């Protein structure tokens, strides 16, 4: 069964005439890793909010169509119930630290306390998640005394410990340096390998190409492409809608124009494919 089923979703923020999302329909299977790409203002964040119920519950606004997450209709399910099913991690790591706690360990416990989990049950859950996200060493530090990448992993851990069925990430590395980004991406990939369903809005296409099982491209609130990374990321529509392409695709396209790329060979989206293509041409 699909863990996410969206039917004709249209959403307007309050007091806006232009819809932020327009007639979206798609499904996501359990365990899938789906990347959402799009130019600035395309609706990536809004889609993340719609998947977690913040649109419309938090932002209000007008929504039509249906969003089913793990069988729950987001419009008729209170936010607190949805939080048990779909966890949201977003861009700014500092703003995701609750501010209610003084150590990383307590910070991760915060969600569990709010859910009323018995203390004896909390500790093993927290320990496991801290190991998984690689933050065990910071347990007794203040969450504010960490680097951006470390903070973002604390934010991830704080959501994961609540054991959602689905992880929604809105450009989780856009505020991080390359090292921090790598740490966070590796953590997300590890979660995905363990079977977690992941939906990630992301503009770093090289990472999308290596991670995603499927890519959905948005433009002006509409889905323009939905398919395997190799197909979506090499589509000419991406350039048309200012989404860009991976540097491997760019290089291969230039090579193709100068007859330096094997004819009939698909354009690459990751470095290995690019390398293989050029080697094949040489032969």
């Amino acid at each position, binding site marked *: 069964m699909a863990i996410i089923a969206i039917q004709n979703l249209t959403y307007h923020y309050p007091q806006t005439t232009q819809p932020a999302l327009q007639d979206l329909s798609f499904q996501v299977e359990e365990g899938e890793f789906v990347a959402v790409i799009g130019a600035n203002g395309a609706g990536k964040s809004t889609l993340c909010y719609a998947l*977690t119920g*913040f649109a419309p519950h*938090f932002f209000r606004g007008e929504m039509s169509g249906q969003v089913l997450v793990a069988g729950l209709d987001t419009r008729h399910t209170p*936010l*607190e119930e949805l*939080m*048990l099913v779909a*966890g*949201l991690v*977003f861009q*700014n790591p*500092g*703003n*995701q*630290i*609750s*501010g*209610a*706690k*003084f*150590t990383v*360990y*307590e910070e991760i*416990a*915060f*969600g*569990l*306390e*709010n*859910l*009323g*989990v*018995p*203390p004896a049950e*909390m*500790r093993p859950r927290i320990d496991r998640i801290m190991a998984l996200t690689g933050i065990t060493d910071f347990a007794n*530090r*203040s969450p*504010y*005394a960490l680097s951006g990448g470390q903070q973002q992993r604390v*934010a991830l851990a*704080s*959501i994961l410990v*609540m054991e959602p069925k689905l992880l929604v990430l809105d450009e989780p590395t856009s505020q991080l340096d390359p090292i921090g980004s790598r740490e966070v991406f590796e953590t997300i990939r590890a979660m995905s390998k363990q079977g977690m369903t992941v939906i990630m809005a992301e503009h770093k296409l090289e990472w999308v190409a290596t991670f995603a099982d499927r890519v959905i491209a948005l433009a002006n609130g509409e889905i323009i492409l939905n398919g395997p990374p190799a197909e979506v990321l090499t589509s000419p529509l991406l350039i048309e809608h200012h989404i860009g392409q991976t540097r491997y695709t760019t290089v291969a396209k230039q090579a193709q124009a100068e007859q330096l790329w094997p004819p009939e060979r698909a354009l690459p989206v990751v470095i290995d494919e690019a390398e293989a293509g050029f080697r094949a041409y040489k032969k």
Partner: protein
Amino acid sequence: MPDNLSLYIERDSPLQRLNPLTKLAISFSLILIGFLGPGYWLATLLFICVLVPLSIWGKIGPEFLQRTVRLILPLALFLFVMQSLFYPGGRTVLWRFWIFSVKLEGVQFAYLTATRLMNMVGAFLLLLLSTHPSTLMTDLTRRGVSPSLTYILVSTLQIIPQMRNKANTIIDAQRSRGLETQGSVRARIGALLPLVGPLVFGSLVDVEERAIALEARAFKAKRVKTSLIHVPDSVRQRQVRIGLVVLTLVMIGIRLWPL
């Protein structure tokens, strides 16, 4: 730079292990008795005979004294200068120079006020130095104080240093663009203006994101919250707290209706 504004000093002592409410009761009864209780020397006695021994019991004696003095000294000096010179209705002149004269009543009044303030500052510091804010908040929440209220208290403690860092970052950025942030007062005030925009606008965006983050952690869930930290309490401590309330009332009573 400290992580937050918490003054807590981690020590293994019986004072630190007391239930936070008990320490809260001790602090507030000391402050109330110091201000409203009878006798000129009461605040002095409370400080020397109660607060100092308690701080030693809590293994935070030196830190306690140092911080109290550092906070109270400038204030006390100011009080002495102002009151000894300008206390209205002072008659007994101790000594005079030029157009000034120091009056006994003024000195006495300054001493009384200064010791009461020292007692108050000391009582607060004893509580803050020996109590981890999480423990205090956990205990208050467990006793029915609204989680939103305790959240506001704790997050303020944490957000102020964070804002300060952010302000410094913005100042650095402005400075690297050649903005004057040192030098004359005028230049510095001028330099502060471009800081206001990013700080305020940034904070508005932050507020929305923080609200989402809190929701995402089920902060608003209508469930009975649990707590990671167990804060111990005892019947004996409960009795002590009741005793302190009674004692405070009695002391204030003695002042109001002296025998």
